[in-house]
């Protein structure tokens, strides 16, 4: 333990990355061939997923082992924190692309198709009679008539759920710092339960949209942005909730101390990030 304090821990050799690359190879080739219509591609894809999951478990087990073994000094801890921060920043930019698409559609392409700015003739000659509104499935009425997802039903409940979970995870964090294990386990459990509840309700919303509202991925630009934004967000919530569960298991096993708990904080940051994205979503996709 003593040498951890003055040496930056540099692992020598690891086979996990190459396993991960092989997993990705199977995954990507599998999805691609499947999308091209080859049945077998699906199974190749599943193999890839399995290998990637195996890699993630193996890699993280190693890291957790090293961490518990006391190999990481404060500087390593800081590297992890910075790494997580920049990773989240990259995720923010990924969402930015889709939000950008939403803003572009609402403020540029839809008005243009309706004849504004330098697009008088676009409307007159190609889309006569189309008036720009939002939500819309475009002048071609792509996907047919649909209902708009109302902001104050399920989505509002979901907002409440996520906001609450943000509070519970913060309480858990403070309890961790104060060394109150009991409160920590309870509130962390609450957090991931709320997370899964969110995912469940979101799924219910999708079923509702598909079965009763004719609101689909194929419902023009409204359907596209709605499902891509909420879908990617939902995926992130799912991943976040799984990570919370793992962290909870680690807490139960007695990992983390008031001054060493990078993994906990990383997941908490991630959870807050998912939360902030949701607020953006709620405002711009559901509400206004």
């Amino acid at each position: 333990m003593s040498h951890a304090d003055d040496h930056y821990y540099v692992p020598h050799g690891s086979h996990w990355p190459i396993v991960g690359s092989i997993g990705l190879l199977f995954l990507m080739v599998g999805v691609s061939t499947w999308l091209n219509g080859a049945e077998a591609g699906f199974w190749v894809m599943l193999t890839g997923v399995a290998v990637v999951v195996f890699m993630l478990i193996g890699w993280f087990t190693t890291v957790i082992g090293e961490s518990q073994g006391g190999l990481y000094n404060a500087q390593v801890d800081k590297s992890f924190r910075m790494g997580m921060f920049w990773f989240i920043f990259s995720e923010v930019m990924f969402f930015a692309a889709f939000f950008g698409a939403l803003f572009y559609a609402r403020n540029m392409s839809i008005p243009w198709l309706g004849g504004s700015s330098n697009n008088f003739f676009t409307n007159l000659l190609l889309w006569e009679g189309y008036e720009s509104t939002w939500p819309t499935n475009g002048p071609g009425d792509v996907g047919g008539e649909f209902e708009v997802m109302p902001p104050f039903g399920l989505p509002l409940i979901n907002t409440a759920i996520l906001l609450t979970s943000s509070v519970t995870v913060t309480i858990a964090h403070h309890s961790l710092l104060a060394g109150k294990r009991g409160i920590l386990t309870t509130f962390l459990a609450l957090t991931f339960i709320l997370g899964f509840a969110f995912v469940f309700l979101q799924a219910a919303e999708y079923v509702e949209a598909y079965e009763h509202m004719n609101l689909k991925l194929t419902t023009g630009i409204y359907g596209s942005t709605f499902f891509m934004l909420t879908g990617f967000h939902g995926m992130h919530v799912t991943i976040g909730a799984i990570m919370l569960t793992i962290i909870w298991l680690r807490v139960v096993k007695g990992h983390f101390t008031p001054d060493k708990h990078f993994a906990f904080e990383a997941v908490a940051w991630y959870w807050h990030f998912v939360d902030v994205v949701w607020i953006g979503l709620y405002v711009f996709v559901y509400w206004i």
Partner: protein
Amino acid sequence: MTTAVADAHDSHDDHGPAKGLGRWLFTTNHKDIGTLYLVFSLIMFFVGGAMALVIRSELMHPGLQFVHPEFFNQMTTMHALVMVFGAVMPAFVGLANWMIPMMIGAPDMALPRMNNWSFWILPVAFGILISTLFMPGGAPASGWTMYPPLVLQTGDAFPFLIFSVHLMGLSSIMGAINIIVTILNMRAPDMWLLKMPMFVWTWLITAYLLIAVMPVLAGAVTMLLTDQFFGTSFFLAAGGGDPVMFQHIFWFFGHPEVYIMILPAFGVVSEIIPTFSRKPLFGHDSMVYAASCIAFLSFIVWAHHMFTVGMPLSGQLFFMFSTMLIAVPTGVKIFNWVATMWRGAMTFETPMLFSLAFVFLFTIGGFSGLMLAVAPADIQYHDTYFVVAHFHYVLVPGSIFAIMAAAYYWLPKWTGYMYNETAGKLHFWLSTIFVNLTFFPMHFLGLAGMPRRIPDYSTQFADFNTMASVGAIGFGLSQLVFVYVLLTSKKGVTATARVWEAPKGLEWTVPSPAPYHTFDTPPIARVKQEAFE
């Protein structure tokens, strides 16, 4: 868990590299990974270059000689993707891996295992991309810009294209996170941020750009994928989308991307010119500010690639002005290099020669960039060989020359031997002559009206095309001299730790070749001694 701990234990012993293939597959050593990146990049440079030679052979004379138009377009597309994502970017990441820990006095990169992964994703990505050449419908043929709706006409290669771009993005993002964290967290004590060598600085900014824009590219191609397979309407006007929206998102990535390919080159040149001028870099701090300025501006100029798409007037004017502004900070860099040389005591070893050519020829490329920025004129230049001339001037005698300069500059540090200087100089002169013969005539072709991305052309364009093709073959063959230099790189005289007469920086305080592990403890005294300006 116990094994992990035991494993980790002997890592602190001073051991050398592992034996056999496992060394390269499992390595977490920044020098090994740097080497992997550099070798991969060189291979990709030849693959992409071979594709360029197919293009140039077909264009040698009017009339179709060798390939069908569809295949020609595939070559154009693949050439660009391979060169940009396979050759130039990995080369700079390789240099970063090798040099940054040594330059800042760190024991290794901050996240060594992830470092391995970011490299080993690349062969997968390019394996997938290159395999599309053999698929029904052939490789993607829509240009590296992948504009819809054309890209949606790609055959079976389509999803492979999308996912290989995703993988390239994943690799770049992980590489960039590693570099940022290394620079911010692993510096030796007393290496203040503004003391950092220029190469480290430019890479810090580049890594930031990478993390900011690679995810945006991922988003853009994801939308292509869903438009194609899941019926979304992002790029379909009938559904309320807009094909031009893709171009906005793509260039929001694409323009910073071109600075990603040039900022590290600025860094390399800023290391080399002071060494061979025997004089400190002029205006170190203003160089840092200029690079930051360029990075900032790069986010607000993207639509200069789109002056012909029918943007509203206000948009055109905004993007014209913001683009022109980039000339100012870039000018500061050029002037600083000139001022560094001024009243120095210069010698002209191969790295210096490549750096000097860089300054001359990049500036020419920058000038044509400025001409392109002038919107009404760009309406004439756009999608002609004038643009092709512009970007090859900034990319080939720009980025590629800087990579060559870096390779010659640090090769003795890597191998422990001086390279063959005569061969190096030969490589330089041949490259410089042929690169100009290849790309200078393209300016005339563009102005005279030759569009880009065409396999055949009207007879009035014949002569300059022939010149360019001869130049390209000459330039390609000249690169074989470089391969010769590399193959004989362990045959020369042994290099000293300093290698050159008066280089600055921590990397010159360790022996040549650099030991497998450097700076296990931070070199506090040496930082003080090197007294960075």
